[in-house]
C-alpha cells in the first residue's frame, strides 16, 4: 500500500501554522512530530542504542561547551519559514530561559543520531540544515560506528532542498572533534559513540 500519493499536492504547512496547531492542541499527547520543509513528519520510536547515543552526545557537549551555551535534546528549532525540526541535539547560545517565548532559530551545532534514519539524515535533513546555513552538522552514525561531519553549506539545485554541505569528513573512535563554535575544546569521538 502506498503511503503518499504521487499525483497530488499535499498541504504545505508554514512554521507559523504548525506552531498554531501545537498551541491549539491539534496533536495527540506523545505524538513525536516535526515540520520538515512544509511536511509534518513522524519521528520514529527510538531504540536503546539511539537513546544512549543521544545521552552521550548531550553529556559530552554540555561539558565541552560549558556556561553560556545550552545543549537542547529533541526540542524544536524554528529553523526557517516551513521547518521546525526537533534534532536529537542542538547547541544554542545563552541559557534555557532565553527561549521561553520563541524557539531558538540558529543553533551553532546540530547533531542527529542515526540508525534507521541514516539516509534521511544524510540527504533530506542535511540539505534542510544546509539551506538554513547551519554551519556545523554532525551525524552519529550508529550503523558504521563513526561520526560524520558536515560543514560549508553551498547552493546545489540537485539537493532535496537546493542546498548541501560542501565539506564532509568521517571520524573514527580514535579521533577528536572540535565544534566550529569552540575550536579550543576538542571532544574525543569515542565519547560520542555508544
Amino acid at each position: 500500500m502506498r503511503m503518499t500519493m504521487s499525483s497530488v499536492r499535499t498541504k504545505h504547512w508554514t512554521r507559523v501554522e504548525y506552531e498554531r496547531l501545537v498551541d491549539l492542541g491539534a496533536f495527540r499527547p506523545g505524538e513525536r512530530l516535526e515540520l520538515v520543509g512544509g511536511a509534518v513528519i513522524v519521528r520514529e520510536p527510538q531504540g536503546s542504542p539511539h537513546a544512549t547515543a543521544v545521552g552521550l552526545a548531550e553529556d559530552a557537549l554540555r561539558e565541552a561547551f560549558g556556561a553560556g551555551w545550552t545543549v537542547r535534546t529533541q526540542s524544536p528549532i524554528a529553523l526557517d519559514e516551513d521547518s521546525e525540526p526537533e534534532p536529537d541535539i542542538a547547541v544554542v547560545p545563552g541559557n534555557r530561559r532565553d527561549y521561553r517565548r520563541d524557539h531558538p532559530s540558529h543553533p551553532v551545532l546540530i547533531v542527529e543520531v542515526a540508525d534507521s534514519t541514516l539516509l534521511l539524515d544524510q540527504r533530506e535533513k542535511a540539505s534542510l540544515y544546509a539551506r538554513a546555513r547551519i554551519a556545523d552538522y554532525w551525524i552519529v552514525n550508529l550503523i558504521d560506528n563513526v561520526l560524520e561531519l558536515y560543514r560549508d553549506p553551498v547552493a546545489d539545485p540537485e539537493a532535496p532542498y537546493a542546498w548541501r554541505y560542501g565539506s564532509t569528513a568521517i571520524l573514527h573512535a580514535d579521533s577528536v572533534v572540535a565544534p566550529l563554535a569552540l575550536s579550543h575544546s576538542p571532544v574525543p569521538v569515542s565519547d560520542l559513540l555508544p
Partner: protein
Amino acid sequence: MAASQARTKRWTRLEYERLIDLGAFGPEERLELLAGQLVVREPQGRRHSTGIRLVAGTLRAAFGPDWNVEAQLPVALDEESEPEPDVAVVPGGPRDYLASHPTRPALVVEVALTSLALDRGEKASIYARAGVADYWIVNLVDNLLEVYRESQADPDAPYGWRYGSTTTLRRGDVVTPVALPHWSIPVSDLLL
C-alpha cells in the same frame, strides 16, 4: 519537496474535522482528506465547473426529493478520508446531516480534466475501499463517462481495493444509477 525516507503524519478524519473546527485552515484553502493525507484541491476552470453543474442538475432531476445531490461537500468516507467529491448523491433531506457528514453516498461522480489519473487511481481505490457501489468519472479529456462498480480487494491497488467492473459510455448511450434501477439518464446530459 517531500522527504523520501520520512513518514508524513497520517491524519484521522476526527483530527481533520477538529482542525477545521479549530480554524486551523485559511478561508481560501481548499483541502480534502484522502487516506490520511491533506490533499490540496487544484483551482477549477470553467469547463470543470460547467461539468459539475450539468451532473448535479441532471442527477437532481433523476433522483428527486428523497435524495440530496451535493456538489463538493464533505463525505465522512472512512476513518482517514473526508473527500469532497465533485458530486455525491446521499439519501434524505438537507437537515439530515447537521450532526455529521454523510458517510455512504449512493453515487459519487468526479469531473476529471487535469485530475484524471488521481480520479482513476487513488480516488477510485479509496471509494472502492469504502464500499461506494457506484462511482462515475465524467472524463472531459476524452468526452466520455466511465462507470466503476463492484468493489473488490486487490493488494496491488493503491489502497488495497479496486473496482472489478469498468464501463465506458459515450454520447448516445444511457446510464442507470445502481440506486435508481428503473431510470435511464442520457450520457449526453452529463457531457459538455
